[in-house]
């Protein structure tokens, strides 16, 4: 039965990874340059989950993060010709490229993973109760 604890733990880790990605997305909502200083607006990161059957022998499955993918949404162009990072030439001359991150989507995602985390903590509590009950047979 203690396998159930491992399974719930895998879910906690996965959901926390997701919450980390969301935090990063929200924190970088206005990041216009990459770490080298080149103009390159931040792209939202998305965590993809995958069923993990390696955790158990009885058919129950855990979960793991299969990949963290970078969104491919077009940047958000705002017309700011006097901005130091304004694009000099081409179709978007005079525009500044901003990250295309929707705050509402990110907040909903954060809320969802928080609730999923809580649900799995609840399952862990139940698992512990079941084990404790089983031990009382000895008493």
């Amino acid at each position, binding site marked *: 039965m203690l396998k159930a604890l491992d399974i719930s733990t895998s879910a906690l880790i996965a959901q926390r990874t997701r919450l980390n990605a969301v935090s990063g997305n929200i924190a970088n909502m206005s990041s216009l340059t990459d770490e080298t200083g080149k103009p390159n607006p931040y792209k939202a990161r998305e965590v993809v989950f995958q069923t993990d059957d390696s955790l158990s022998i009885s058919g129950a499955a855990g979960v793991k993060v299969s990949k963290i993918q970078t969104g491919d949404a077009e940047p958000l162009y705002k017309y700011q010709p006097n901005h130091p990072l304004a694009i000099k030439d081409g179709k978007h001359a005079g525009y500044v490229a901003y990250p295309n991150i929707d705050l509402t989507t990110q907040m909903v995602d954060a809320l969802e993973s928080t609730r999923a985390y809580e649900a799995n903590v609840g399952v862990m509590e139940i*698992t512990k109760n*079941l084990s404790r009950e*089983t031990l009382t047979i000895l008493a």
Partner: protein
Amino acid sequence: MQGIFGGTPIQALEHTLTFAQRRHELLAGNLANMDTPGYRSRDLDTNEFQNALAESIDNANRPVSHSSGPYTRDDLYSGPRAATEQVVFHDGSDVSLEQQVTELAKNQHLHGLAITTMRSQFALLRAAITERA
């Protein structure tokens, strides 16, 4: 020991406990995969288990039987199966939080029931051994 424990409900309770524990693992796995795209929930069939257990107990109680032991069916816990044939969410998964939590609670009560009954069985046994009520 077969004489003491074989004829009592303890063996049946033990099967019920094992069933509840395995089912709990599957339900925990379903909740863990709540946000996994394409995941189909897994479960054990409670009714099927109870029918199989009842059948085995009946067989054990039959006076003349040439079967190998009291419990003739060894597949009391039919393997994990896809739990539902129902609405699939847009990400291809079918885990409904409310349903899974309800099943977890029901399963927890089944486990508690078996444990409590088992404890009283052992208390009776102890009373008989020590000749004290």
